[in-house]
C-alpha cells in the first residue's frame, strides 16, 4: 500500500454539505466530532473547503436552489473521493418526496457510495458510515 493510500485511511478529511436538511443530521455530524463520540481521535477532521476533503458528507433532500451547488462542490472534491448520504432525506427523499422544490434524492444527481439511514442517524451510525466508505474506496 502506498503512503498516500495509507494516509487516506488513517485520516480521512470530511466536508459537510447541507442541501436543505432540517438540521437534525447536521447536528449529529457535529455531535460525532465533539467529545462524546470524538471521531477526531480516528483522524477525521471537518474541513472548511471541499478542495481539502476526501469524504463528502451530504445531508438533506437537495432543494432546487442547492442543486447547482451540490454539483459544483462534488466537482471540487479531488479524486479519489467518497460520497456518504447522511439521513433518510439524502438517501431517499423521505418526508419531502413529492414536493415541487425537491430535486433529490441525492443519487439522482451525484454517485453515492454509502447510505446512512435514520431520521436522523445516531452519531455512531455516521461514524460507521464513514468507516465503511473509507474502507471500501481507499482500503
Amino acid at each position, binding site marked *: 500500500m502506498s503512503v498516500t493510500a495509507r494516509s487516506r485511511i488513517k485520516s480521512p478529511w470530511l*466536508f*459537510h*454539505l*447541507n442541501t*436543505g*436538511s*432540517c*438540521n*437534525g*443530521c*447536521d*447536528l*449529529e455530524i*457535529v*455531535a460525532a466530532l*465533539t*467529545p*462524546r463520540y470524538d471521531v477526531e481521535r480516528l483522524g477525521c477532521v*471537518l474541513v*472548511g*473547503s*471541499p478542495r481539502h476533503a476526501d469524504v463528502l458528507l451530504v445531508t*438533506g*433532500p437537495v*432543494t*432546487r*436552489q*442547492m442543486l447547482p*451547488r451540490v454539483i459544483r*462542490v462534488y466537482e471540487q472534491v479531488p479524486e479519489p473521493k467518497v460520497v456518504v448520504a447522511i439521513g433518510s432525506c439524502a438517501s431517499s427523499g423521505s*418526508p*419531502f418526496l*413529492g*414536493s*415541487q*422544490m*425537491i430535486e433529490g434524492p441525492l443519487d439522482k444527481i451525484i454517485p453515492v457510495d454509502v447510505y446512512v439511514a435514520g*431520521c*436522523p442517524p*445516531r452519531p455512531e451510525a455516521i461514524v460507521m458510515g464513514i468507516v465503511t466508505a473509507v474502507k471500501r474506496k481507499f482500503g
Partner: protein
Amino acid sequence: MTDKSDDAKEIKVDYTRLRIPFGPVHPALKEPISLRVTVRKEEILDVDIRLGHVHRGIEALAENRNLVQTLYLVERICGICCHSHTTCFTQAVEEIGGIKPSERALYLRTLIFELERIHSHLLILGLVGYDIGFETLFMFCWHVREEVLDLFEEITGNRVHHAMNTIGGVRWDLPPHLIEKVNVSLKKIEKSAKYIYDVFQDKTVEKRLCEVGVLSYNEAQELCIVGPTARGSGVSMDVRRDYPYAAYKELKDRFSVVLKYGADTYARTEVRISELFESINLIRTILDELPNGSISMEESVLKLMREIPEGETVSMVEAPRGELLHFVKTDGKEGLRRLKVRTPTLANILGLKPMLIGGEIADIPVTLASIDPCIGCANRITVVDEDQGEVRVIGLEDLRRRGRKR
C-alpha cells in the same frame, strides 16, 4: 485618452467598495444562507440577505397530507426546535377540534419544551465560542448538551426528532425512575451552566463580544425582532408570559423573563445563559408539581383526526429562538387547506442589517451566530471586486482567523 473618455468619465467607479458574497455554504452554521456584504476596507457598508436555499415546499406538501402526516412533517421543519413546531401545530388542531389534553400531558409538553430550550441555548453558546476562536468552550458546551440528549432519548426514544406530541396529548409518559434521572442530570447541567457563566464573564470574551453587532431598542421594536435577540436589546416580550400556552398558565409566576440592555452580542449571549438557569428551575418545578392522570385521549389519534371540523386558527409558542407562529386552516376532511409557518429566525434575520452595518468583516460570523440563525451552511467566502473584474476567494478559516486576531 481624452477623446474616448467622455463616456467613461460619467461612470464614477468607487474602487474602494467591495462586494463579498457570504454563503450559501458555511461550516459555522447548519443551513444555507447567502449574504452579500459590501465593504470598504474592513468596514461593512451594506448587507443583502438571500434566503430560500432550504425551501422544501413544506407548506404546499402539508396541503396534500392528512393532519397526522402533517404533524410529523412540521417536525422536520427544524431539527433543533422540532418540539416547538409540533406543539404549535397540535395546539392549533386541538383548538379547532375542541380537544382538551389532560393536565399531565400539558406538563410533559412543557417539560420537553424547556429541555429543548436548554439544548438549543447550549448549542448556540458553543457556536459563539467557536466563532471567537474559543474552541475549548465549543467542545465543552456540546459535551454538556449530550446530557440533555440522553434525557430526550430516555424519555422519548430519539435524540433529535422526539415525536413527543400527538393530537390530544403526548405519546410517552414519565415514570418515577426517569424523574429521578432527570433530577440527577439537571444537577450536572446546572453545575456546567455555572461554569459556562463564569467563562463568559472572562475579560477576553467580554471584550470580543461587547459593542459588536449593536441593535438598539428602537430598531428591535421597529423590525419586530423576537426572542432572546429582542430581550438582549431590552424589549420585554415572551410568549410564555404574554400569551401563556400548555402548562405555562399555571407556571406563569414560576419563571422570570430575562432582560438585558446591552443590545450587543454580549447581551444576547448573557440572555441565553441566564435562560439556562430559568429553564432548569422551571423543569424542577414541573417535576415537583407533575399532576397525575392519563397522558393522551382514550380515542385513537386517527379517530380524533377524523372528527376535526372545518376551521382556522393561529397558534403561538415561544421557541428557543423566539416567537413561533402557525396558521392552520383545516378542511374538515382529515386534511389541511392551508398551513402557514412564521419562524423566529425569519423575523430576526431582518435585524442582521443594522447589526452588521458599520461593523467589521471579522465580526460577521459571531454576529450571525448571536441571533442564533436556523439557516445556513456556507463554506467559502468569495471576495468579488466587480469593478476590477477580480475574484478572490477567502476561506472561512481565513475569515475566522481575522476574527480571532481581534
